[in-house]
């Protein structure tokens, strides 16, 4: 409930002496901060109180309302019924391309249910967004992306609170050459291909508390489904640990002109059932996805007008408009499916688990998946990358919670954790000689988004002042135990090429915050409440 208390007499008397043109000032409306419950995420919960405390000091009436996670998502995205909300975006590899995160401030995404619930609207920003997504020259695109960050930062429609390091661990008596990747931790697509056994067991065992929703490439809408499926389906391009697109099933990717891309496949690739992989399969897969009900990949597929096989191993992509992220995102995220298996399936989203085809062409072959228990893959010795793979297979053990995962890691039942460890487990793991703890920076971020349609957040100066009142340093040091980094722009510092380090940083400074408010015509009444 937002109550607008009108304080004519008192505030008039108090401010008349200070400001010459006497205006009727009224109290800034009370604000409610939505955040997660303590049980869901103590960090975001505590963070809300740190912010609320400082805002109260500035004379704002603040309440913190922790909400059940799904309810929080609903309020924020579907209903846009909020003043300020603390949420986060996970760092998925395809989000290393700036397209996605920059899009969360595009005014055309401000509708109900879309990615810009705060409603930031800046026509210049939108124009630059279009320009960068069409720009093929990477240096020029970088310049535009940097400019966009600089442009929106002054307006602070969203505050990137912090980037939380992903802290994972593996058993060094079982495997070596485990290279963690930003945003992915150890459970990247490369670790299973690079890991080298040093113990008796030659299958890499991963343990985690999350499992795929399903392994239907036309129904799965979870990261956990795709993190597993990408091990047995090939993509045309894979993103290297340094997040550069590496030709994978494609031998070459060539831009004929701005809207035409030719892809040539590697020779001699085989499906796991022995059939050859051809250009027909690739063209079929993209068309199949574009014609399906499955919407998970829609953003990736959006730039494509048509795909056709132009030879046994050559495919032509016709784009509807120039798209810079096409090669990095689209080609690296869409799996290639075997035409001879899928072409007969009309309603792929309705397949029951035992009907779902699992034939891919990837470096691992699907073995089995027992829901709630485990999944396994064996190494594909016919794969072009097989000589570089040291493990005989990959197994994923599903646990009920992070506690179970950690016990399994300690007792050698698993070799690595798929998901970040609980803060309390980190020192235990560090004290265990058999375990190596790896900490990788994340380019996903936790943010506070202001509803720019509502007072006081409709005012740029108020947003700026309230941002200066956020002690994000303290959040990182206290809440994250130093395992993280204070946020700047939506493009994280670890994403060095796209990140613009020369933007306004909004260091914690209560005096500057007060000054900012005063300059914008705010003042304080007898009770110390902020008025305008």
């Amino acid at each position, binding site marked *: 409930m937002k109550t607008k208390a009108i304080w004519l007499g008192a505030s008039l008397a108090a401010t008349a002496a200070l400001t010459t043109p006497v205006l009727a000032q009224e109290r800034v409306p009370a604000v409610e901060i939505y955040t997660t419950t303590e049980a869901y995420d103590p960090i975001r919960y505590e963070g809300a109180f740190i912010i609320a405390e400082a805002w109260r000091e500035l004379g704002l009436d603040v309440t913190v309302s922790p909400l059940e996670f799904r309810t929080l998502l609903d309020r924020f995205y579907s209903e846009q019924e909020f003043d300020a909300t603390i949420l986060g975006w996970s760092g998925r590899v395809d989000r290393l391309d700036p397209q996605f995160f920059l899009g969360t401030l595009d005014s055309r995404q401000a509708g109900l249910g879309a990615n810009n619930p705060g409603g930031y609207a800046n026509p210049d920003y939108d124009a630059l967004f279009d320009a960068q997504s069409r720009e093929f020259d990477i240096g020029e695109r970088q310049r535009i992306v940097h400019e966009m960050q600089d442009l929106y930062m002054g307006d602070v429609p969203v505050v990137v609170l912090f980037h939380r390091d992903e802290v994972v661990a593996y058993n060094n008596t079982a495997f070596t050459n485990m290279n963690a990747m930003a945003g992915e931790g150890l459970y990247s697509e490369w670790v299973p291909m690079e890991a080298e056994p040093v113990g008796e067991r030659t299958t890499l065992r991963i343990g985690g508390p999350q499992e795929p929703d399903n392994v239907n490439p036309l129904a799965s809408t979870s990261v956990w489904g795709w993190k597993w499926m990408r091990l047995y389906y090939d993509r045309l391009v894979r993103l290297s640990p340094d997040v550069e697109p590496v030709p994978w099933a494609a031998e070459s990717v060539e831009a004929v002109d701005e809207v035409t891309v030719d892809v040539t496949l590697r020779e001699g690739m085989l499906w796991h059932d022995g059939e050859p992989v051809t250009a027909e399969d690739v063209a079929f897969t993209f068309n199949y996805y574009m014609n399906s009900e499955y919407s998970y990949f829609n953003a990736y597929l959006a730039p494509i007008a048509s795909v056709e096989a132009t030879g046994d191993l050559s495919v032509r992509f016709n784009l509807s408009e120039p798209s810079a992220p096409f090669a990095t995102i689209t080609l690296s995220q869409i799996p290639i499916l075997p035409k001879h298996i899928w072409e007969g399936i009309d309603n792929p989203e309705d*397949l029951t*688990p035992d009907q779902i085809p699992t034939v891919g062409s990837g470096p691992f072959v699907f073995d089995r998946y027992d829901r709630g228990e485990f999944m396994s893959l064996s190494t594909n010795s016919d794969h072009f990358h097989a000589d570089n793979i040291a493990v005989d297979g990959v197994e994923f053990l599903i646990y009920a919670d992070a506690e179970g995962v950690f016990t399994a890691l300690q007792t050698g039942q698993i070799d690595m954790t798929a998901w970040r460890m609980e803060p309390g487990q980190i020192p235990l793991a560090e004290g265990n000689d058999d375990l190596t703890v790896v900490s990788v920076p994340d380019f996903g971020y936790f943010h506070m988004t202001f509803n720019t349609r509502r007072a006081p957040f409709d005012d740029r100066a108020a947003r700026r002042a309230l941002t200066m009142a956020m002690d994000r340093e303290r959040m990182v040091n206290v809440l994250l135990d130093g395992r993280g980094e204070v946020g700047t722009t939506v493009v994280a510092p670890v994403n060095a090429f796209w990140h613009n380090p020369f933007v306004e940083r909004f260091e914690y400074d209560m005096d500057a915050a007060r000054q900012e408010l005063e300059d914008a015509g705010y003042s304080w009444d007898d009770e110390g409440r902020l008025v305008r």
Partner: protein
Amino acid sequence: MSRRTYLIKRVLQAIFSIWIIATILFFLFRMGLPDPTAALITEGLNPEQRAAVRAQFGLDAPLWQQYVLFLTNAVQGEFGTSFSYRAPVSEIVWERLANTMILMLMAIILAYGIGVPLGAWLSWRRGSRTDTAGIFVGLMFRSAPMFWTGMIAILIFGVWLSLMPTSGMRTLPYDADGFWDKVLTLDFLWHAVLPVMIVALYYLGSPLLIMRNTMLEVYGEDFIEMARAKGLRERDILYKHAARNALLPVVTQLAVTIGLAAGGQVVVEVVFSWPGLGREILNAVRTSDFPLAQASFLIMAAFVITLNLLVDILYTTLDPRVSFR
């Protein structure tokens, strides 16, 4: 009232209760839980794409239509398709229920197999140190939270001694076709030891204390006096006369325990990563997987109601004093 009319009446009552519960569940989840597609936003789906997913789930139809469809399907034992697994709900629920029941039944049999005779014995030695110790142990495990006893057991037997497996139902890699193939192995039993022990210790207190206290009441009855007067041995009086008459409350308790067992002991299933129904229910509610949550809760409720019905009928056989009125 004849036995037949009584039976028919009780069965109809049971069916009515189940229908009420089904209805409450249906509306409760739809009103109380957030939209199941809410989580898809964080995956980057736009509103149109989410609407398409809602339509796929059948959530775009009017509520009453969804309700009628739900009931017609439920009557035929069909519960639709799980939103997140995209698999038939009945398949998931039965598999998980079997996993839960096997764990719970082993624990219940152990708890009652030990608790009932032990309770009877303690009542015989009432007031002694053994009695006090027995009651203390029973109450202690009854009141200790299972996540704690479970974690202590894991720490001692799993981490320190490296004796026992601490999670799941079997060792990898395995190959099993069908439920019995999976369960009838030494490996499975080995995995079940810790969770079964923890649940059994927790359950032990009820039969132990109920049996002991009812026995004490029975000792005061005239027929025990009579048996003593006839010069029967104490042991015979205890087990043949007193114990049989003290069983009734224990049977009630047993039925309720088995009934509630269908929901599993969520805590134990989580601590030991046991793939049971309790864990699944938790997930279903978390992800707003309406079909899966509805079916799980409905089956749990149906279990409790059916077992209560069975007990009522069983009473008439166990205790001739219970009449059909």
